[in-house]
């Protein structure tokens, strides 16, 4: 037990004394989470509304595609974006590999399925009569979307929180595209990979503790939402 105990003590003191490396990693992680969730929401929520409310052909296929893309292994997304950003690749001139911007981009792409698919699910779960009635009363498309968004806000927020959660736990894609550069573009999760690889177990534990604290905060937010939603079941993780 002594190893565990010693490492834990060192880990706690790293957190308590505001270790500069740890502070930098926490700051960058929060930045990644905020930017990627904002981008994924700005694109994904309107897209989800269109697919959820629209009455065009192929919307069922789009819905299945959105659900399926939540199950895509992040390592695959990471590899594909990395190859697109390689100097010889189609977007090589952007020089995004091994940069912070690259990490923002890849995490936004990973978060997008969550905001799209969970917005669709939230809109579809609205009572069927609601949007029919609004349509009959002559609501335009924008009015209908606003109405649906207001009524389905709890489900949409759950999608946003799920996007935040993936930003905290994601490793593979961020390591591939970002290169996991020490003190530059590491997130908490990718830094824990680096730390265990370098046998810096106290750092790894400190990172784990901070990550758990952040996730607990999110779960707290989610369960508050769940209570507002009265009976709507919300869960982080896969929505199968």
């Amino acid at each position, binding site marked *: 037990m002594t190893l565990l105990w010693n490492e834990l003590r060192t880990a706690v003191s790293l957190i308590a004394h505001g270790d500069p490396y740890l502070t930098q990693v926490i700051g960058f992680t929060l930045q990644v989470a905020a930017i990627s969730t904002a981008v994924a929401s700005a694109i994904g929520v309107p897209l989800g509304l269109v697919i959820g409310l629209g009455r065009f052909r192929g919307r069922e296929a789009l819905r299945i595609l959105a659900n399926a893309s939540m199950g895509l292994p992040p390592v695959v997304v990471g590899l594909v974006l990395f190859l697109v950003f390689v100097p*010889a690749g189609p977007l090589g001139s952007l020089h995004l590999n091994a940069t912070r911007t690259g990490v923002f981009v890849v995490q936004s792409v990973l978060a997008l399925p969550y905001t799209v698919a969970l917005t669709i699910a939230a809109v579809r779960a609205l009572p069927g009569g609601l949007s029919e009635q609004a349509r009959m009363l002559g609501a335009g498309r924008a009015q209908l979307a606003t109405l649906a968004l207001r009524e389905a806000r709890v489900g949409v927020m759950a999608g946003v929180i799920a996007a935040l959660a993936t930003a905290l736990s994601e490793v593979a894609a961020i390591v591939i595209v970002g290169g996991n550069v020490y003190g530059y573009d590491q997130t908490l999760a990718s830094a824990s990979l680096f730390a265990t690889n370098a046998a810096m177990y106290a750092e790894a534990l400190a990172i784990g503790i901070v990550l758990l604290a952040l*996730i607990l905060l999110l779960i707290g937010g989610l369960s508050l939402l769940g209570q507002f939603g009265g009976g709507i079941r919300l869960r982080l993780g896969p929505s199968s």
Partner: protein
Amino acid sequence: MGFLWHQLREAVPLIWGGQGDVMRLGWVTLRLAFVATAIASVIGIPLGCAIGLGRFRGRRVVHAVANASLAVPSVVVGVVVLILLLPQGPLGGLRIEFTLKGVYIAQTLLALPYTVALTAAAVNALPPGLLEQARALGARRGQLARLALREARIGVMAAVIAALGTALSEVGAVVIVGGNIQNHDQTLASAVLQQTTDYTDYPEALAITIVLLVLIGVLMAALTVLGQRNDTLRLRLRTR
């Protein structure tokens, strides 16, 4: 686009050719995913059933903890398991750090929240009258549990498939606990990471990715079929 196309063309023959590495990785990964999910199901489904059906005190708290454990970042599980398994750690006597056996333990722990929480959710979602009636007719605990599992089987199967899916795409915990050692304890997903970041062997990484995507695709199709059956089931219940 020429670059991507070229890499892809080189990747395809590697799936069967090469040194047979890709197919071997696929086999190791499948076995790992199935064994970990099987163990997690044997422990988790009865546990989830007890949480969903039980009328003991604190079951809401236990259910909330099970739901929350779905959101624990896998790297955190990896760090904790590794430190427990290190030679100086409490389970160091087992000597399974940086081996496939250690990875089996980590994957089982990661699959457990899915089988517990999603089984509990599936059982909770059963029409309340059903279980009350069975109780009133004098069903004992074992009978009640069997009835609940039979009625909630689609949800339980979805839980098992979700656990399989995450096991296939898991990177963080596998790399941390196993050390990502080639020809020793790699999975498809962790091998993609190494081939890309350490060896810059993109065709090999793409070949592994293709196999991973095929496996995920099969699981996803199964989930979609289950989901549709679940929909019709719910519809039928509603109209009645």
